[in-house]
């Protein structure tokens, strides 16, 4: 007798594909092979060990799994430095046009002029918006864009014979990808402390720079991950440039600037743009991303290859070896073209007028939240903030309620938590990025729940806060067990 699983109501128990009874027929109908002798020079593969189910079973499996996910289409997603904004479906529709979707990257360029023109236009938009006209679309994600940018800087130094420049300056509030990227490029990381003010101060920068002899560059996110604009950025970039270093701008927080402030006017030499953040290409549960880089004319000769070039009325990709100063090719083919289509659709939909409203509304929303919660939560650095605001659990922790508890309480109330325990420079950090695509009612609901938590803590009603979530598809998961006893795949038992 089969045991009944623990499905109740709309909460489905969904087994692994491998745990399902194997169907005689798969979920596709293919022609019958002729089974002639193989010309592979090898025997045909034996049993692989794959599951087999029909199409209706497959659809049900994935639809049931989907119901266990939270998404931006469900509700508020204030994940700091991640820019979870509305993902317009027009972009999806455009990327699926057969003239884009079924285009092979190695086709003769006479047959891909439309795609190349689109990429050229995206290069132009990104160049205009950043003030950095050298644009390379190939990087596949933000971290890959960082790699492209730091390799561009490195190639420039090596070309000039500056082999002594071996250090990259990185503030301690930076994303982990910054130091990890610089290390992948063989650089030594020198950390700029920011704990005291939440910013890179002129004096801390000067101390890290020293005489600047060994400094190849600096990686700064601006606005930074404390939600603050680096107000000394012009003086800092001037000093860096005088010492022969380049300023890498981490584009994770470009949503605070887009259409209103050009990074070039802040002294940035090269930066990546997360098309999946600022320009709304969907996060897809963690990818695919797209991280084009933009740079000054001085650095452009060193960018990765290929870029798209317009010769009179025809478009073409750079040929292999055409730009010998390039830092090289960083992936197969020429970038996440499907994401380029989506991002350009988004840009055209907004226009320069709409993009300015994007950054302004994003900044208003973060400051609105800050203004409503600053009496309830500890604010480590005074505002105004930019497009995200930083709170901590300092007040609540005295009563034993932590950032983790607050995050999980938000889940209980049907919202995605903010970014937690980042930046590392602040204890119990809660980094809140509301984005411009929320209504005031959504913001108010979030504020209401946050105030309720603070009041519960004050009143000593903390027991339930440690138990949340109880209404989500799962309760808190045992991460220690997962790491201690790695179970990373289904196995025949």
């Amino acid at each position, binding site marked *: 007798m089969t045991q009944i699983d623990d499905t109740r109501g709309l909460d489905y128990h969904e087994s*692994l594909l*491998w745990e399902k009874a194997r169907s005689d027929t798969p*979920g596709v109908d293919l022609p019958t*092979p002729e089974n002639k002798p*193989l*010309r*592979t020079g*090898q025997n045909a593969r034996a049993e*692989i060990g*794959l599951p087999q*189910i029909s*199409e209706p079973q*497959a*659809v049900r499996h*994935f639809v049931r799994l*989907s*119901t266990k996910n*939270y*998404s931006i*289409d469900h509700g508020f997603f204030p994940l700091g430095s991640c820019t979870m904004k509305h*993902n317009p479906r027009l972009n999806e529709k455009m990327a699926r*046009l057969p*003239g884009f*979707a079924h*285009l*092979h990257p190695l*086709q*003769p360029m006479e047959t891909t002029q439309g*795609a190349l023109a689109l990429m050229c236009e995206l290069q132009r938009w990104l160049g205009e918006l950043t003030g950095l006209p050298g644009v390379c679309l190939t990087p596949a994600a933000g*971290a890959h864009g960082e790699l492209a940018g730091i390799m561009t800087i490195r190639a420039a130094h090596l070309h000039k014979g500056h082999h002594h420049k071996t250090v990259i300056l990185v503030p301690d509030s930076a994303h*982990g*990808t910054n*130091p*990890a990227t610089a290390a992948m490029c063989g650089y030594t990381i020198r950390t700029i402390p920011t704990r005291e003010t939440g910013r890179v101060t002129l004096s801390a920068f000067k101390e890290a720079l020293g005489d600047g002899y060994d400094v190849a560059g600096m990686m700064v996110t601006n606005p930074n991950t404390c939600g603050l604009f680096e107000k000394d950025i012009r003086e800092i970039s001037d000093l860096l440039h005088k010492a022969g270093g380049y300023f890498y701008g981490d584009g994770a927080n470009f949503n605070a600037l887009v259409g209103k402030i050009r990074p070039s006017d*802040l002294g940035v030499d090269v930066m990546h743009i997360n098309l999946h953040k600022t320009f709304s290409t969907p*996060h897809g549960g*963690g*990818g*695919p991303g797209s991280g084009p880089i933009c740079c000054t004319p001085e650095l452009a000769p060193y960018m990765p290859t290929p870029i798209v070039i317009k010769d009179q009325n025809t478009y073409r990709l750079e040929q*292999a070896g055409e730009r010998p100063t390039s830092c090289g090719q960083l*992936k*197969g*083919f020429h970038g996440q*073209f499907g994401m380029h289509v989506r991002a350009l659709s988004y840009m055209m*939909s907004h*226009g320069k007028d709409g993009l300015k409203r994007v950054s302004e509304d994003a900044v*208003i929303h973060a400051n609105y939240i800050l*203004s*409503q919660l600053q009496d309830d939560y500890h604010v480590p650095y005074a505002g*105004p903030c930019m497009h995200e605001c930083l709170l901590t659990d300092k007040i609540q922790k005295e009563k034993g309620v932590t950032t983790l508890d607050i*995050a999980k309480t938000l889940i209980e109330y049907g919202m*995605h938590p903010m970014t937690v325990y980042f930046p590392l420079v602040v204890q119990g950090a809660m980094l809140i990025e509301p984005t*411009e*695509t929320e209504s005031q009612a959504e913001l108010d609901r979030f504020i209401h729940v946050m105030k309720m938590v603070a009041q519960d803590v004050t009143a000593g009603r903390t027991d339930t806060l440690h138990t949340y979530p109880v209404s989500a*598809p799962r*309760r808190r*998961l045992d*991460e220690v067990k997962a*790491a201690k006893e*790695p179970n990373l795949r289904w196995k025949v038992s």
Partner: protein
Amino acid sequence: MRYLPQTKKSRDNMLSAIGVTHVDALFTDVPAEALNHNQFNLPDHQGELAVERTMNQYANQNRPASAGRFFLGAGAYYHHIPATVDYIIQRSEFLTAYTPYQPEIAQGTLQVIFEYQTFIAQLTGQDIANASMYDGATSCAEAGLMAMRVTGRKKIMIGTPLHPHYRETLMAYLNNLPDADIEDHITSDTACVIIQSPDFLGVPHAYDDWRKRCDAVGALLVVVVTEIVSLGLLPAPAQADIVCGEAQSIGLALSYGGPHLGFFACREKYLRQMPGRLCGRTVDADGKPGFVLTLSTREQHIRREKATSNICTNQGLCALAFTVHMSLLGEDGFKTLARLNHEKACYLADALSGVKHVKLPNPHFFNEFVIEIPQKSDVVLDHLRRRDIIGGYAVSDHHILVTATEMTTDDDINMYARALSDILTEVSA
């Protein structure tokens, strides 16, 4: 503007709650000369219809593989994608979710990743697989870097013809590190030997001899697969230490080169040196089974400059498309698909080698192979294009790599053979 919910009234409300009268009062930390740049040479906002018109114009200037008579592969393959795949990946709950950092509300994405890891491990004959790399070329570069970490050595040997983009990408990654280099021979300094199979010219390879040669010097064996469908017909590279490559063929459109799906599998003993995201099974506070991202102490957000890689994607939606397509294919369907690809390529090989002056240098192949012609490859390919046939990829002056998949029809193949015959007669060598 249709994507922005605020009205003038609600903005003013919020500004007054903040305690300012104008939005620029929130930007006082920005240098005045940088604020409110107003010289953008860009248009103002447009409605859906206008955007669609422009996008359609771009799309209509391309000649896609779906127009037929398409024989180009070389690392990206035109395959059929079942309707279910695109339906599932467009569900909001998958499409617009974030990286599953909050596992209580991300079990859908996490279970898919766990299933994806299992699919990749089963297909490659390896113990474990990560949740995922950008593409085949970067996955191959990461494998090279991982082999260097495991062995403490700096040299990488490429044993069979490797896709030129993979080679270029590997070289660019290695250029960043002192003494790291690609070599064409195996020594006691060799961190790994990279074997692409089928190789860039389409030839499948066996691994036993390479395994012995690697073991003799203590190097790792890395197998690269650019056409994952081949794993339904060719034996699994179970002898390898790392198997990596490109999985675009299952579930992902060509999309002019991306997004595609890198995969990465290895032996369990190298787990701690792996790059990228891993999903593991555990239990929740009620003892119910569930999944989380795990072993993140290898990763950049914890280890910073000491991380195994800077990568933080899990290429989630691409891994989902792959997993949905694989679940539809199943054991029988996947093997049948592989065999159909091979049989179509056999038909193509017979048709083209029947053309006067065309030779087939390599008798063994999976779904692509090289033809040798007396005339210049690029000239012949251009003549084919004028007849609306995308004839393949020029790998040298007189060699063209041609590809067939289940999408290729016998009519297409016959048309190709006739056109090639005509062109080789018309164009002098």
